[in-house]
């Protein structure tokens, strides 16, 4: 039986996808490739919803989508299960471990024992791999960490059955069978993934998703100081920065990741035009970082005039324009 190898990545779901696919012999998979094939880049500002008392914003696609899409694109069959009963969930996991099959688990971080307290919010879409058991403890490969760790059965059960939004319900998943992955399969996977990502960024109706969503947030930011007061408005900006950053993804992290994907896609397909779009996404990542820096001036209390909020909003408008341009050009490239 093949021994499991831990991989550290910027983002947890990419990491689980990479490690599980590598374990099943997909040697060429990298984090940017997994992220890109899963059409991972996104933006959405969900109106009227609060997360941890702040705005609900996401810079990436729905939880679970990256693993699902990437596997599908590479003709990898996937098994994914949710459980009503904790006993059944435990039994199934135990069986998989005895079979020597590493499995991905969706977990909540609030009760995740090895996480620093500062990061432990009721956030339920974290992903990790259980790859074995030793001395009664489950061996854990958490992709955001440099090394592997372990959890007691009680600790693991608690995080697998965390409650609240996106409750994992003991959810676990793993590749069932990996077929033949030809160069042509990979080329097609890249082509389709890019097409889907262009659609998500440019053509979702409603004005809160994709590049339009970034403008929606900009519009909101202009009104926050007046509407919520300085204190609350500053906290909201802090939340935007934290969402951009959720543990493991550096500033503008997902934009750089997508730029890195386009670089790899260019090497694989031989299409040099993709490099130009990659540069635009790099620029966008830099601008997101600039916006975080500007927002931090406000939540640190150094800046607090309406003009400062307008500056943040203007920067977001600029990012929206740049990403719109990038994805419009990307949608025209023939792969």
């Amino acid at each position: 039986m093949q021994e499991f190898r831990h991989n550290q990545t910027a983002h947890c779901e990419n990491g689980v996808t990479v490690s599980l696919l590598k374990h099943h012999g997909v040697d060429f998979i990298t984090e940017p490739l997994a992220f890109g094939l899963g059409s991972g880049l996104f933006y959405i500002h969900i109106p009227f919803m609060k997360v941890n008392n702040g705005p609900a914003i996401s810079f990436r696609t729905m939880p679970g989508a990256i693993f699902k899409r990437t596997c599908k694109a590479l003709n990898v069959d996937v098994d994914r299960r949710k459980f009503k009963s904790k006993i059944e969930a435990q039994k199934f996991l135990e069986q998989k471990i005895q079979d020597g099959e590493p499995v991905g688990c969706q977990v909540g971080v609030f009760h995740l024992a090895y996480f620093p307290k500062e990061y432990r919010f009721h956030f339920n879409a974290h992903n990790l791999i259980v790859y074995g058991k030793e001395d009664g403890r489950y061996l854990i490969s958490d992709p955001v960490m440099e090394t592997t760790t372990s959890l007691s059965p009680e600790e693991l059960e608690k995080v697998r059955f965390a409650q609240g939004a996106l409750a994992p319900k003991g959810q676990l998943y793993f590749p069932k069978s990996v077929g033949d992955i030809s160069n042509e399969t990979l080329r097609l996977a890249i082509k389709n993934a890019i097409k889907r990502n262009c659609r998500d960024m440019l053509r979702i109706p409603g004005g809160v998703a994709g590049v339009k969503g970034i403008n929606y947030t900009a519009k909101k930011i202009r009104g926050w100081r007046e509407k919520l007061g300085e204190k609350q408005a500053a906290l909201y900006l802090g939340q935007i920065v934290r969402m951009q950053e959720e543990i493991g993804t550096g500033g503008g992290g997902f934009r750089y990741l997508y730029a890195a994907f386009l670089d790899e896609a260019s090497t694989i397909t031989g299409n040099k035009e993709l490099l130009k779009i990659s540069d635009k996404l790099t620029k966008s990542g830099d601008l997101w970082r600039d916006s975080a820096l500007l927002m931090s001036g406000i939540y640190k209390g150094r800046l607090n005039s309406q003009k400062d909020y307008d500056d943040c909003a203007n920067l977001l408008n600029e990012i929206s324009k740049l990403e719109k341009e990038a994805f419009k050009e990307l949608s025209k490239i023939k792969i």
Partner: protein
Amino acid sequence: MKKSELPQDESALVNFTREVCYVKNEEGNYQAELSTGWEVKTEALNSAWKDIEERIEEAKLSVKKGEKSPIYYFMELRLMDLTVLAGYTGFWKFQIKRHMKPAVFSKLSDKKLEKYAAAFDVELNELKNTQF
């Protein structure tokens, strides 16, 4: 972002892990690099925690004044909202809101209180006799 610009600031990640970031190296290619943190993020996290601590203090005060039951205080202390607490206890949100009234709380059965105690990770006694 260039490799040379990757921040290596202090953060709560210390003694836990360094995080992976994608940066451009000298040859202009992307590569993964490790960072100890970025001050901009650390400050965002700090300001969120400062707000949480204020919320907890306010909750404490409203329990002391007899405006709210200890359930409200423990919910804030455990960073929960009604959705999360409903998930852990099995009560409906409107029931929880009622249980946050001191008069209703004082008549709750131990069986119901046990559910809250388990959700908050405290002893039943602690929940019943909150002393600030």
